[in-house]
């Protein structure tokens, strides 16, 4: 039980008359690469936004188990509090600080965890300088890790889509999270970038011990990466299981266009 990282219990989310999430229950184990898939409009991003405190579901509970299995209820907390507790995320359309360089983008992530103090920041005392040096080093390490070291001083707005995803991942990792939520990381990337991203994602989990929760449309990518999947349709969970189980699940197949496994593979 204590090896859970996320526990979503009967969560429902409504916007006016539209039901975005309908009695959704799921859980993620620590160290898992978990994927959430489903047709467009199934509620996947709403789920993400609920997990990060951006949306507030009207029903249900979401519990996040931070370090030392300390439980925290996500619903009712502001987004930055949830992020501070150890939930990092990327966005469907990459949100970088576009007028800043790659290095600065990640550095802001690394610093956000230090205690704040305007006076201390101004005075640049020895403690502040130590902290800054540490953030700088951490930033460089992360840029090396995601493979953006050579683009450290490029304006982030000039990065390619694949590199933007890497930047967002690096920035999220800079906050020393327990779990990294990736919203369609492969969208808009070419096959070689996709391969690189998949390897990176695996590396994040293997080398850094960060659990991964992934939304993706690219079936090939998802099936090769994910250890377990949930399938959403019209705001409800319609299936759960390993990649092999999901591929042969008739409800899932029906939910997507196409009524054969091959057709589903063609989605990639």
């Amino acid at each position: 039980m204590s090896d859970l990282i996320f526990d979503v219990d009967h969560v429902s989310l409504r916007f006016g008359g539209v039901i975005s999430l309908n009695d959704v229950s799921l859980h993620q184990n620590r160290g898992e690469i978990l994927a959430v898939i489903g047709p467009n409009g199934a509620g996947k991003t709403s789920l993400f936004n609920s997990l990060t405190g951006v949306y507030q579901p009207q029903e249900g509970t979401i519990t996040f188990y931070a370090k030392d299995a300390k439980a925290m209820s996500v619903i009712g907390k502001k987004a930055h509090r949830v992020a501070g507790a150890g939930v990092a995320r990327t966005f469907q359309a990459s949100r970088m600080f576009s007028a800043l360089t790659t290095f600065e983008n990640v550095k802001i992530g690394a610093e956000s965890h230090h205690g704040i103090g305007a006076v201390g920041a101004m005075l640049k005392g020895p403690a502040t300088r130590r902290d800054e040096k540490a953030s700088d080093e951490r930033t460089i390490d992360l840029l090396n890790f995601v493979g953006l070291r050579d683009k450290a001083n490029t304006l982030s707005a000039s990065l390619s889509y694949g590199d933007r995803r890497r930047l967002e991942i690096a920035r999220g990792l800079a906050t020393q999270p327990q779990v990294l939520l990736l919203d369609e990381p492969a969208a808009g990337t070419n096959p070689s970038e996709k391969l690189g991203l998949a390897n990176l994602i695996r590396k994040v989990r293997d080398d850094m011990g960060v659990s991964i929760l992934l939304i993706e449309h690219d079936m090939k990518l998802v099936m090769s990466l994910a250890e377990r999947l949930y399938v959403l349709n019209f705001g409800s969970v319609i299936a759960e299981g390993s990649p092999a189980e999901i591929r042969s699940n008739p409800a899932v197949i029906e939910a997507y266009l196409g009524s054969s496994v091959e057709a589903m593979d063609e989605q990639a």
Partner: protein
Amino acid sequence: MGAFGHYLTSHFATLRLEFWGLLVGGLATGFIYGMVAIGYTLVYGVLRLINFAHSEIFMCGGFASYFVMKAIVGTSVPSGFASIGLITLGVVAGAAGGAIAATALERVAYRPLRRRNAPKLAYLISAIGASYFMYNLAGKEFGRYNIAMPQLYLNHPVFSIFGAPVELYYLVILIAGLIMLIGLDRLVATTKLGRSIRAVAQDAETASLMGVNIDRTIALTFILGGALGGAAGFLFGLGSGVVYTMGFTPALKAFTAAVLGGIGNLRGAVLGGLLLGLAESFSVAFVQAAYIDVVAFGILVLVLLVRPTGILGERLGRSA
């Protein structure tokens, strides 16, 4: 508690005595606020932008109608049909002045920014600058003192409601206001222009794909809002005269009304205007004259903090 209780009872007594008079006055003021508020709401709808300079459009309408009236009205006070004709002319002149000012504003201060796809902050600052420019120029040209509008009719109580006299002035505002507001409502609901405005307000990109001329629609939106604001300037000027600073406070209150009713929502703007006018009017019974404005600004601050979507909700709102 005793002192406060005494304060309340004595002021409520005043309120009850003056109720109908204050009601009529409040409604008239409310119509003026509503008409100006529509200008804010319309521009907000199509540009997602608060037109800070709308206060000066109100002023331009006031001055335009003043000059026209000054040129036409002789020394004797007209009456009967002549009065009605003059009032109508005044409304038209005010509307024209407001529309021209609004068009000029849009061309000079906003369109170049739209061409460059400037960040929204630039529009706000440009609006502030334009507002400043216009009203200080007016101050330079027309002097710093209040100029009274030539008399178009003999102001007298027309009839009484429950003992409170209803002056002709209020009647003029109520009738003129009602005609214009209903006219606008029909225009937006039924005509092609109205549909274009609503389309652009919903989704400008798609609207342009569907063949709506965005530039023209925006220009016409400004004209509409400007016409109503300018006409309101004339009506306001009838009672209070015109002066270069006349726009600031009424426009800020009209903005309060627009937010109160739900910015982006035309009927909300009118509703907000009426509510604000009534609130102001009734508070005369409770606070000193100098603090009436504080009531309006206080409502503004409260609405923005507590329910920024307003009463009728932000029609063109976003989810979550």
